[in-house]
């Protein structure tokens, strides 16, 4: 699926590669944050600048860039999420002419020292943006941006709540498309669209899922990938994906920022204290978070999807597996080398997982 782009309006569009990059700062600058998805095709050009046995997401981002898919970007912010992203930053600057390319250093700790450091890092990012784009990012603008982005989080949380109850009346694929399109729009416009979708569903009353019987409720966690085809397949064999704990979906909507008189500090605090993804170290917190989600969304099993060569997710898996099994939650490990995890092998494994699966609600 090609990433949809709405470039009809005269906007400054800044690409992002990680959900730890605070969109609020870009919104405060009057920009549109654009989450980069790459695409599902195998890379052709990127392997001139990055090795073939490398993160498929990094390769895909660069490949799309080299093919001109991101020429409309006025800038890109790449986070120091992992080894792959650090090298993507180098390769992007080396091979492409995006006018503004910034590396955002994200601490791996979340103690007070890390939080203060992250705040200083954000100040530098703001200074770089102001200097390059000749704009001013004020505290008032940051507060407004926090309000707007908090609304996005709230609306997406509602969307997920309805989705998990089968009360949306639109397919998971359409939900993901809505979210993906929304990641390219100005936030206010995205919020308007989300509001419309939610209101229209509420007006029509509760629309129950078309599934017959009690489908197995699954959650997906893991590396970045484009979830649609995987979800379609899972649903075609009688299960229901009620939550995706991946950085472009569930992880994106975590935690409203508490507004106070120091908006930048509030942003730094909130982002650094998100429930950790695999690039952070606290596995126990990650296990607790997955179990909390499983309880909230009445999940019976977890699909752990790791991109090939994704060290953070691959090395997390043994402890996560142990933690979830101890809590009685079955987990299936899948590994794929593309952003579209729908190979025959993966389908076979999902089917086998569902066949031995006995509904196990965590509660």
């Amino acid at each position: 699926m090609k990433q949809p782009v709405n470039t009809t309006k005269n906007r400054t569009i800044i690409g992002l590669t990680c959900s730890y990059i605070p969109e609020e700062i870009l919104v405060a600058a009057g920009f549109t944050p654009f989450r980069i998805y790459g695409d599902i095709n195998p890379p052709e050009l990127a392997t001139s600048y990055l090795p073939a046995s490398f993160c498929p997401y990094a390769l895909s981002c660069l490949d799309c860039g080299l093919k001109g898919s991101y020429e409309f970007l006025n800038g890109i912010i790449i986070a120091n999420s992992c080894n792959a992203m650090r090298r993507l930053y180098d390769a992007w600057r080396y091979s492409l002419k995006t006018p503004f390319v910034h590396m955002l250093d994200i601490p791996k700790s979340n103690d007070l020292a890390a939080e203060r450091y992250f705040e200083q890092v954000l100040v530098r990012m703001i200074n770089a943006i102001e200097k390059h784009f000749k704009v001013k990012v004020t505290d008032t603008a940051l507060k407004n941006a926090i309000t707007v982005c908090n609304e996005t989080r709230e609306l997406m949380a509602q969307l997920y709540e309805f989705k998990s109850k089968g009360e949306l009346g639109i397919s998971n694929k359409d939900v993901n498309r809505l979210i993906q399109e929304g990641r390219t729009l100005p936030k206010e416009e995205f919020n308007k669209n989300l509001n419309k979708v939610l209101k229209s569903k509420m007006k029509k009353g509760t629309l129950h899922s078309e599934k017959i019987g009690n489908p197995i409720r699954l959650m997906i966690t893991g590396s970045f990938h484009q979830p649609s085809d995987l979800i379609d397949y899972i649903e075609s064999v009688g299960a229901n994906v009620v939550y995706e704990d991946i950085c472009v979906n569930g992880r994106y909507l975590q935690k409203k920022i508490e507004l106070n008189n120091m908006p930048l500090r509030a942003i730094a605090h909130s982002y650094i204290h998100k429930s950790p993804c695999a690039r952070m170290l606290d596995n126990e917190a990650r296990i607790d978070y997955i179990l909390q989600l499983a309880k909230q969304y009445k999940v019976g099993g977890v699909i752990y999807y790791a991109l090939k060569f994704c060290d953070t997710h691959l090395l997390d898996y043994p402890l996560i597996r142990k933690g979830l099994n101890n809590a009685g939650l079955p987990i299936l490990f899948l590994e794929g080398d593309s952003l579209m995890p729908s190979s025959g092998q993966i389908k076979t494994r999902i089917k086998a997982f569902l066949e031995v699966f006995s509904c196990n609600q965590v509660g």
Partner: protein
Amino acid sequence: MQSSRIKQRENLRQFLRDGKESKSPFYSLKATGKRLRLIASLFKRAYSPESIVAWRNTFVPTEMLFALDIVPFAAEANCAMFAGSDLSIKPLDIAESNFYSADTCSFLRTVIGTSIGDCMACPDFLISTSHYCDGAAKVFYDVGKRYGRDFFLLDVPYDYNLPEAIDYLAFQIEDIMQKMAKTIGIKIDYNKFAEVINNSNEATKYLRLVNELRKNIPALMLGGESIDYAAMTANFWGLKEAVDLYKLLYEELKERVSNKIGALPGEKHRILWRNLRAYHSPEIMEYIEIKKGAVIAFEETNYVHWENMDPKEPYKSLAKKILSNPPISKIENWITKTLEVIKDYRIDGVIEFAHRGCRHLNSAAPIVKKELQKRGIPFLIIDGDCIDGRDYSDKQTKVRIDAFLELLGGY
């Protein structure tokens, strides 16, 4: 729950019993013997029940441990030793049977496998930096959970130039040392800390002198002998013995200069070696140097990237030492250093050993290759694994080396 160090020492003996004796063709200097004895002595001390032991990854500065009389245990580097005795397969299999992907770094999988197999000296603490690789900190965190021991992360910022980066890292070094000192029941002795920093400075002085001598033509020592000084010796910075070691090395090389002795008669070419080597076999370097006469004049792992440290500001000094490592930050910093070395050591060609699973270092290779090609500098990447020799193809590797050396001419 793990057993005692005495039991672990016994488990280690059983484990080593199946190993082959590793005889290196690269052992010509007294300093090398001294280095090996120092490694053995520290390794032995780690297994003593009386020692306070901290597992460290390669980039944690040992000065912060010696200042507290803590014995550093270089978990990753020790795996290289197991590989040299052909003992990696069992711990790798153990790791994989515990769901650690075979696509991840074999150093880290060996660390996991040997800790599950309970033959590594149980740590009192574990410390890892967040660089170079994402995996090291994760594995150390994991192992810390298995042993029920405190794990400390040294979260290394990306941009070494920024004052807040130095402050953040310095704060962490002090914080970790204070926590360890409290657990041990001591206070940090700043006189001792200053002594450790001074030892480190003194040893570095001799290493700089050694590196200066190594610009000599013909080369004074083979790369196969010098490469191991970096990773293993990184476990000694701050000890008086490290000063003695590098002083001895300097004196031996100086003597070779005076006596006009080169390491390789009829040296044909001078190679710069990037990254680590295949520890399961010295064959590759032996073939390049001894068989084909192309001396590895220098290796980037021995590059001194840090400045003299100030014993009155030990935390900031150590932070700057860590941050000054060229591959941490933007790739252009690393490329600049590589080009400097190529010029200073009059290098004819560059060989990089691409350890499978090493995302950080290997991922730089395509861009480095382009930059070297622009300047007409031949560059060969040897794909392999530092620890796991199962897929090593002797013939294939030698064919590629031959083709590369033919490009340099004279064959």
